[in-house]
């Protein structure tokens, strides 16, 4: 009896989380998969017709939005790394006992509602605002130059909004780097750069890897930034899905598009994991 209990215990432990996943992830996912192959509308109802053309039609009509979303996702993710790494590095190694304060400061803006932050952005970046106004009056920028309602604004917004998802894993990875290991590198004739390049960087790559996954996926499927900061040419696939679902009640199309997006993201992540997520990469970086 006691042994049986012992054998069952681990399964009992995963039960709450497992159930949660099944109810709120697996079931909707299966259901969505089923909806994505239906035809119909809200008034007449939807029928399960195994209508695979929902997928091909979606790609036909919105292929350019998929490409744009992946492209924006890529740029924003790379920008996130470029911004997050130095910040995380500084906090992990240079901030001393004020680490948590700095980390908190970095995350502080994200305690404020996204919409408020975006409105602040719009105030700052408006055509005649505090940034662009003076530059224009000094003739450093053409008169009708604008940042808002452009791809640049969308990518900047995405970068800014998902920065913490990059900073935190990198910070955690850097924090875990044993400073004695870094000292060992110095001791073995590595200068600052070599110690970083051969030891700190490879040891923090798992954090970058986690950060990329945590950033790239939500960035690519985001729709808020494009709708608030973008113009007519910056629609992302998330906006399309949102419109199809909420405005048009085209549940089947919306589901098919979501699944296509999911497949593309998984593909991208797997390719990335295969290319960069292995031991060999870390090892090569260390040589």
């Amino acid at each position: 009896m006691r042994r049986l209990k012992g054998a069952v215990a681990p399964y009992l432990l995963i039960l709450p989380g497992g159930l949660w996943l099944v109810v709120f992830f697996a079931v909707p996912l299966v259901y969505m998969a089923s909806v994505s192959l239906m035809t119909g509308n809200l008034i007449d109802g939807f029928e399960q017709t195994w209508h695979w053309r929902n997928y091909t039609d979606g790609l036909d009509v919105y292929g350019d939005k998929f490409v744009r979303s992946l492209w924006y996702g890529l740029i924003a993710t790379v920008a996130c790394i470029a911004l997050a790494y130095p910040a995380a590095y500084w906090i992990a190694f240079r901030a001393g006992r004020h680490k948590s304060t700095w980390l908190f400061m970095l995350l502080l803006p994200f305690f404020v509602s996204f919409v408020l932050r975006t409105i602040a952005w719009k105030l700052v970046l408006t055509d005649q605002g505090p940034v662009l106004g003076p530059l224009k009056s000094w003739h450093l920028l053409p008169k009708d130059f604008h940042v808002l309602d452009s791809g640049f604004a969308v990518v900047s917004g995405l970068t800014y909004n998902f920065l913490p998802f990059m900073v935190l894993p990198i910070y955690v990875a850097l924090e875990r780097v044993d400073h004695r290991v870094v000292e060992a590198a110095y001791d073995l004739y590595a200068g600052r750069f070599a110690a970083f390049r051969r030891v700190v960087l490879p040891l923090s790559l798992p954090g970058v890897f986690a950060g990329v996954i945590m950033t790239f996926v939500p960035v690519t499927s985001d729709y808020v930034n494009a709708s608030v900061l973008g113009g007519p040419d910056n629609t992302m696939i998330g906006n399309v899905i949102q419109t199809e679902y909420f405005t048009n009640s085209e549940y089947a199309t919306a589901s098919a598009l979501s699944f296509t997006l999911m497949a593309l993201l998984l593909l991208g992540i797997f390719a990335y994991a295969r290319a960069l997520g292995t031991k060999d990469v870390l090892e090569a970086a260390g040589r």
Partner: protein
Amino acid sequence: MDRYDPALRRGLTSRRNVLRLMGASAAALAASACSIPGQGGRGDLTQAQIDAFWKGRTGKGSLNWANWPGYMQDDHASIKAFTKDTGVEVNYKEVIQEASDWFGKVQAPLAAGQSIGFDLMVVTNGIQTSKMIELGYLAPLDHSRLPNFDKYAAAKYKDPAFDPGNTYTIPYESGITGIAYNTKYVKEEIDSIAQLFDPKYKGKVGMMGDSQELGNFGLFAIGVDPEKSTPKDWASAARKLREQRDSRIVRKYYDQGYIDAVAKGDVWLTMAWSGDVYSLANDDVKFVVPKEGGTLWTDLMMIPKPAGNPVDALTLMNWLYEPAHNAPLTEFINYITPVPATRQYVLADAAKATGDDKADLERLASSPLVFPSEADMARLRNFRVLSQQEEPQYQKVFTPIVQGS
């Protein structure tokens, strides 16, 4: 600050809830089975059916009201007055930010006949309202309990095409969709929709992202009354709008933010709602009803069919139509009230007030944006009522424009 509240707060809150809604809808979707049954054709009722719905129902002394931000005084003065008058407690929530999002949120429980937790909600006339009527999600109104509506509502608001006989809805507030322009940048008189298509305003024009609002202006531009438009007209209007977009005249298709953009000069002229322009109180920004026409839209009060306290909701609706009760609300909201007699009470309040308050109230009572002139009213058109077959067709024509396809 109060003056800016309605538009600003709508802007602030409009996106926040969308994420939450997404989750709710997905879960609700998952609750149904392997096909989603249709629910069309439930809009037409006989008087007997209406009577049957109300038979045996009585007031319970409380109600839950879902409304848009900025549609009630910050101190809830009107609600307090109502409770004092009638003894009915009101649980007031500003939970509606966009008609389509709200519809997405309540669609699943209403389809299942389950309560959405509200006895009264305010939704704009348009696709979502038509769908809810069509799908039988709304309780038919018992007009015997709405004497004030019959007595005080302006003729324009009675028996609208989207809800014949006001079977399901009566207006809360309404507004005009027209053109706002910033006179600091635009050096000519704007009086025509054609000017929104003028290449000299390249990159400086704002259009609305809502497919019906956008479609309406496209139809006006090609000289068609939206209410009487045909699918063929839609295609030509879409061509016109697409041309406008592709020649980069349109800076952005806005949901809410256009009013800040035109105030700051990011766009110089834009489609706009009258109340936003009034609330902006910026002398540089002018609002016009274009000569081709503008549209009159109405935010409607309606009762979800599964509501627990529909009689109390009717009591509130009737109470709000009393001009003396309506005046304080209109003074705050700055949109067009469906009760024209309210103006007398606003003037009376103005006479009693002093200083800034007096000036504000006088401005309100004389504003064509709140109490439009007969000439303006004559130029206003209604939204096209889309049948269940037409609606997807209409969406397919106009939504890709906004998405840049």
